[in-house]
């Protein structure tokens, strides 16, 4: 078989995920404390799991409508209205999907033609640019920096816009930096999008996990934005349901209709078990979610303090469960630092470059890890930083 001829050139040319490369290294090592996982360390709350079990007991094992269960869409509509303060019609403006990832894939395929341009902020989630490339469109990163606390600068956004720009992808709070977009910044971004007729795809999967005392505001809730925004959310992070693979998209009927067309051909629906568990999470999951959020909050405060004490400059992230400390002062690249940390101290953290070239000099450290392990990891990292500093002094 001539694979060069047989396989899709577009897919074959996609770069390998930097996370995947690091995963391959870690998988062969034993006794690792990992700060490299992008998911909650909590098990899905029991009442939600019990709802999934009950769904199976009742024999609910069929397909659902391509639009998902009506009861789920109604529950989503209510939740989104209460939390994001945006109203969506459950009959035609909400689509349950297999995680936010599928919703992004559907939306990009429905919005883009070959040659169109999508802007996104970097460091950013690893799948955005490749998913854009899979539609034969072009993804252009806009670099963010510690100077803006990794929030998207409206000025840089305006400068990056070209005649081909059609879509802006946002992700606040951000994976991997934990950054949030202040309301003033978000308003300016909204103004620019309206001015240049840009559609916004906003992945707000971490929106419940805010620790800065501010209420989360979705760009979809700003004046004139609902009609040009697809709000993507799901159950994975707030309700610790990553393995249930359930997310949803809320947006204009015209786009949702088109997304359902692909969805009906390629996925049909998320599993009915997950959908029924999702209803339970939305209706009764708030206390457990708040308890998990408070636990992340305590861990964030702890790990940021420890990082700064050991010489890794680390801003206080406003949300998600990631910190993005700088390793610049140790004279190693992100990748070398992460590799040596793994080899010498058996602590796994992801090099910032896995999330874009401007992540150079940083690590992504996830604190969704038990406190005891977090303490051990910090002790080991402090020891590692000390040894690097003493080596620098000797040199």
């Amino acid at each position, binding site marked *: 078989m001539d694979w060069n001829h047989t396989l899709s050139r577009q897919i074959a040319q996609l770069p390998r995920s930097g*996370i995947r490369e690091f*995963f391959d290294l870690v998988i062969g090592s034993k006794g690792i404390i990992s700060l*490299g*996982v*992008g998911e909650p360390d909590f098990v899905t709350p029991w009442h939600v799991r019990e709802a999934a079990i009950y769904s199976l007991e009742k024999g609910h094992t069929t397909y659902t409508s391509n639009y998902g269960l009506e009861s789920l869409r109604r529950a989503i509509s209510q939740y989104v209205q209460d939390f994001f303060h945006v109203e969506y019609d459950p009959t035609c403006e909400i689509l349950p999907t297999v995680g936010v990832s599928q919703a992004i894939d559907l939306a990009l395929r429905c919005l883009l033609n070959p040659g169109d341009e999508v802007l996104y902020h970097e460091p950013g989630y690893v799948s955005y640019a490749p998913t854009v490339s899979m539609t034969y469109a072009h993804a252009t990163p806009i670099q963010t920096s510690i100077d803006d606390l990794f929030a998207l600068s409206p000025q840089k956004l305006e400068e990056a816009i070209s005649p081909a720009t059609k879509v802006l992808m946002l992700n606040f709070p951000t994976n991997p930096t934990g950054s949030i977009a202040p309301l003033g910044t978000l308003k300016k971004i909204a103004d620019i999008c309206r001015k240049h007729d840009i559609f916004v795809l906003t992945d707000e999967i971490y929106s419940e996990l805010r620790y800065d005392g501010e209420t989360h505001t979705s760009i979809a809730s700003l004046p004139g934005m609902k009609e040009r925004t697809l709000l993507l959310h799901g159950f994975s992070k707030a309700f610790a349901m990553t393995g249930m693979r359930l997310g949803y998209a809320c947006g204009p009927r015209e786009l949702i209709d088109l997304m359902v067309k692909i969805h009906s051909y390629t996925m049909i629906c998320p599993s009915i078990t997950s959908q029924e568990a999702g209803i339970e999470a939305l209706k009764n999951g708030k206390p457990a979610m708040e308890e998990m959020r408070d636990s992340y909050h305590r861990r964030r405060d702890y790990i940021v303090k420890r990082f700064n004490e050991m010489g890794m400059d680390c801003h206080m992230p406003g949300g998600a469960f990631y910190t993005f400390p700088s390793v610049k002062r140790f004279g190693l690249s992100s990748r070398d630092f992460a590799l040596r940390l793994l080899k010498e101290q058996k602590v796994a953290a992801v090099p910032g470059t896995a999330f874009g070239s401007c992540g150079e000099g940083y690590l992504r450290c996830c604190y969704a890890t038990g*406190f005891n392990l977090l303490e051990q990891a910090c002790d080991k990292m402090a020891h590692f930083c000390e040894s690097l500093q003493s080596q620098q002094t000797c040199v």
Partner: protein
Amino acid sequence: MIQEALLKLLEEDARLSDRQIAARLGTSEEEVASSRAELEQQGRIVGYQTIVNDDSIGVAAFIEVRCTPEQEGGFNRLAERIARFDEVRSCFLMSGGYDLLVMVEAKDLMGVAKFVTDKLSSMGGVLSTSTHFRLKTYKLNGLMFDVPSSSERISVAP
């Protein structure tokens, strides 16, 4: 006030040092020590114990006790007399069909029987007892027993 957060941490792991707690709550070791002392003085922290799975060692029984309340003090004096026996691990005043729920531990079945017949039933004010033996513990003080831990969480994920 860090007291509630302190209690929550200690209920999960009573071995945590003041230094560890201070780091987790973002406060000073001195504040943790003084809060802990205050909680101990108030009697909210009654003690620090290890949760042991002793299903296979010894015998435990839950005894429902009906008794006559006294004119002054109701059930208190009798309940405290019962609770003082070494065999009694827990003792609660209950609503419903009986008055006291007494949890007893002994080396063997005869040990429980001896306690019930010799000490409990014969006590003045005790009207009747109904003894239920523990067969297996599934959960104690918020901790699940014998649940295999899930270890399939991947080490690096996006």
